[in-house]
């Protein structure tokens, strides 16, 4: 009898430890919203979609002036043309996506139960090309960023709606992305969270750090530093280099899982890509 009681107590102890170290995605989302609300009580939830411009009035004014002649406009036009141009087999991108690919960006990344992988919009674009006998595009910038920009433009104002289904593989992918976000790496020993969870609103050199929530809504972006369009994963690689870590392959498992977790943190915010950033 005593042995059974001991066993039950040990099991209960184990379960409580396991429970304290794991939070489901919904709890993560609730926690992160509450965390930022306490950190920036004057910032409205929807305004987080504007990234750092939700936090700094001067930077916001400069950004709004840039938005009067948006530098991503050419990419949107180019993207529309590429999107509508038939492949060699006569099909177009519209044949690969639900709703003809219009107004769907807010649902990406998504978990594909058939392949057991996280699928980002850019990966889906290239898989569509390959399915129809075309060569995949180079990730990060160029045509893929333009097509993604056009698809993002057609999705503006739709609330971000990334779903983590009740599938252990999806939860594992989400957890891997979360672990990546909170792990220190590189010679500077910094995690994504060091800047964007612990220090949003503070300066790093001359730049103000943006909060994690809302960072993904406006991608792809025209970044002044790049003088061209770039995808979210291009930015990930840049961040990794900045902390002196070796970046991962674009659209490899690491960055796809990271994008899955990262975008889930913006659920409910309006999609507002493409954007313009410094």
């Amino acid at each position, binding site marked *: 009898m005593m042995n059974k009681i001991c066993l039950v107590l040990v099991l209960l102890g184990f379960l409580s430890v396991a429970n*304290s*170290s794991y*939070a489901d995605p919904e709890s993560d989302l609730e*926690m*992160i919203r509450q*965390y930022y609300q306490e950190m920036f009580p004057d910032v409205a939830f929807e305004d987080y979609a504007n990234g750092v411009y939700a936090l700094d009035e001067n930077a916001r004014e400069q950004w709004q002036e840039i938005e009067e002649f948006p530098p991503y406009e050419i990419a949107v036009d180019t993207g529309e043309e590429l999107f509508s141009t038939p492949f060699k087999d006569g099909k177009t991108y519209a044949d690969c996506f639900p709703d003809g690919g219009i107004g769907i960006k807010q649902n990406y990344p998504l978990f594909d139960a058939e392949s057991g992988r996280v699928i980002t919009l850019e990966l889906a674009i290239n898989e569509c090309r390959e399915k129809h006998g075309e060569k995949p595009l180079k990730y990060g910038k160029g045509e893929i960023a333009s097509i993604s920009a056009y698809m993002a433009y057609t999705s503006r104002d739709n609330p971000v709606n990334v779903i983590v289904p009740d599938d252990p593989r999806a939860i594992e992918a989400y957890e891997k992305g979360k*672990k990546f976000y*909170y*792990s*220190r*790496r*590189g*010679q500077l*020993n910094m*995690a994504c*969270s*060091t800047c964007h*969870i*612990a220090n949003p609103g503070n300066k790093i050199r001359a730049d103000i750090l943006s909060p994690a929530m809302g960072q993904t809504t406006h991608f792809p972006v025209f970044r002044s530093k790049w003088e061209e369009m770039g995808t979210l994963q291009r930015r990930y690689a840049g961040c*990794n*280099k900045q902390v*002196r*870590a*070796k*970046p*991962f392959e674009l659209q490899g498992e*690491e960055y796809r899982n990271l994008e899955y977790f990262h975008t889930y943190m913006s659920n409910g915010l309006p999609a507002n890509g493409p954007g313009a950033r410094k």
Partner: protein
Amino acid sequence: MTRITSISFTLIVGFLLMFNVACSDAEDSGNNKGTIGLEQLLDSAEQARQKASDAGFEWNTIQPLLDKGRETMEKGDEALAHDLFSEAKAHAELAIAQANYADKHWRLLIPNSE
């Protein structure tokens, strides 16, 4: 007398030759030892880099140090190559330690974590 002088001369020359060979042997042996030591250091640094990479925590400082070390070794500056390989290895070992730490403690960076 001439015979004694000739024997002495032969002995002296022989001694000098032996001394010279011994010295050059020692020198060659030292060089080989240095190159072998450097190659071993390079191997261990490369192995540590691979381990950091497998863990997903490779620093972008490591490969340039290894590349520069190889280039320096080829030019014959073994002392500098040794320093570069040693630094690369140290960075790789720190990256491995970082990976191990992250694996155990990454949740500590989550807000409100205990």
